[in-house]
């Protein structure tokens, strides 16, 4: 599909999409600090999928896009505590090997892709009934 989009152009595109709310309803994302010129640190939210234990919960996450993004996937860390097999229960870091879109990362994936995939992961029949920590609890950040 044509030339490779450089990292910053790509991130600017994603930023615009996130701020204008053009993407999926249930996920939102934007820069953690508005003056981050390198656009490395992002925050995202996932609206808990309906008909699951996550219904009506909002999960906040931190996303870090390294220098190699989008050739390399972003690192994802939950801020709100969540009980999911792909999430480290101690610090909320998402294990890339356990989430297919991170394990098989492609340049075409975006942070939105990851958020949507995580939401699907929550809605997966095997995960949607997992007991969850109290709403609003957060991982103690180091």
């Amino acid at each position, binding site marked *: 599909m044509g030339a490779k989009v450089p990292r910053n152009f790509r991130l600017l595109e994603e930023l615009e999409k996130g701020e204008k709310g053009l993407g999926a309803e249930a996920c*939102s994302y934007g820069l953690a600090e508005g003056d981050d010129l390198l656009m490395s640190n992002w925050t995202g939210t996932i609206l808990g999928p309906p008909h699951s234990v996550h219904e009506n919960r*909002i999960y906040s996450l931190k996303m870090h896009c390294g220098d190699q993004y989008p050739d390399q996937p972003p690192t994802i860390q939950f801020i709100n505590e969540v009980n999911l097999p792909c999430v480290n229960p101690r610090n909320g870091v998402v294990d890339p090997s356990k989430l297919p879109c991170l394990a098989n990362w492609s340049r075409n994936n975006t942070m939105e892709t990851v958020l949507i995939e995580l939401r699907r992961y929550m809605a997966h029949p095997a995960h949607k009934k997992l007991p969850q920590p109290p709403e609003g609890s957060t991982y103690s950040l180091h």
Partner: protein
Amino acid sequence: MADETAASEADPQITFKVKTSSEGLHTITIAESATVLDLKNTLAGDDYEKIPAGRQRLIYSGRVMKDEDPLSKYKIKAGNTIHMVKSAASNAAQNPANAGASAAGGAPRAAPGVPTNMAAGTANNPLAGLTGARFAGHMGLPGAEMFGADGGMGAPPSEESVARMLEDPNTVQIMREALRNPAIVDMMIQNTPHLRNNPQARQIIQSPEFMQMMTNPEAIREAARMRRMMQGLGGGAGAFPAPGVTDTTPQGAAGSNPTPNQPTATPFNPFAAMGMGAGGFGRGAPAAGNPFAALFGQPAGQTPSQTPPAAGSAGQGTPSQATPGQGTPAANPDAGAANAANPFASLFGGAGGANPFAQMPPLTPESIQEANQAMQFLRSSGLDLGSLFGGGAGAGAGSPPPADTRPPEERYAEQLRQLNDMGFFDFDRNVEALRRSGGSVQGAIEQLLS
């Protein structure tokens, strides 16, 4: 006075959009120094969402906005979008501070017990959950492409593709699961008059034979072959009465259109096909036994009729002895009479061995009709099992929607415009995605981004 004016002029206003979960979109202009709570109170007003501030949650750019923060903290740019999500009433109740805030906002609180979100209203529908977003990405569920182009609104899939679909163990699994769920079966029975009056309905629906009938790809292929055969012969029969016909009922009409409901055109409908077959053949069992009796292998004559004849048996007027000869010239016309309990027996007269139907229970017009109704009910409940059979399948009623022949730029004009607004400029890809999503912009975007 002058000072105040100066102050408000120095206080910059921002204009942004608020998008709600119910597809509402509001454009709000408010002072940057206003707090998030002020914004929520504005949104709680009658002009906007009428949702108490305490139950609103606002998300901008990946952050949940806190009530006490000024809007300026979030650096909202002009024209950007804030998402608004309703929280459940229970959440608001857990948070007395929020509840107080909503009272202060003067917005009416929802009465206790009144369903306040979509999910709450579907408690008595066991199928409701199946349509929820929790099935997004569920590996077992077939994708939208299985419904064909335009999300199934266009030409129906060929019978070959339907049969292929049923070869997918996942699809079969889903249908089995549905039929195994007593709640779903109950609902099917309660919503289908014929089944309601039939004490054996539950057994029938849950019988392995019924499941096999619905899920056997070979049966689908066979039905398709039969349908083609019947259609071809139906016309001819109108002109030349089959030997032995004593009735003056026009054969073409009876054979090719047994009920006003069944689609007469090409869409593939295994039941319609069988219905046609059975209708055209007439009631194989003049004894008019329980139509399901055959399904259980009982002699038809022994069971008194429990089900009123369905419309599907319009072909009844046709003497049964005569018509089988029409369907399979090879078959002995007398076979239908001899094997009265099984109208299909004669159809397969010569070809029994290789034919999958030979191992399947015989079908009667009524059983087909009721299966149709059951399928239809499932469709109307949101679980589109009928569509698993392709476009018009399972729909005894309702002819297939006429194919939209307008060019895509006309048909999807509005959606294409929206996609363009969002920055998707590739016309061909947009049209392709819209076709796949059946015209849904949201679905098309997902396609474009995947």
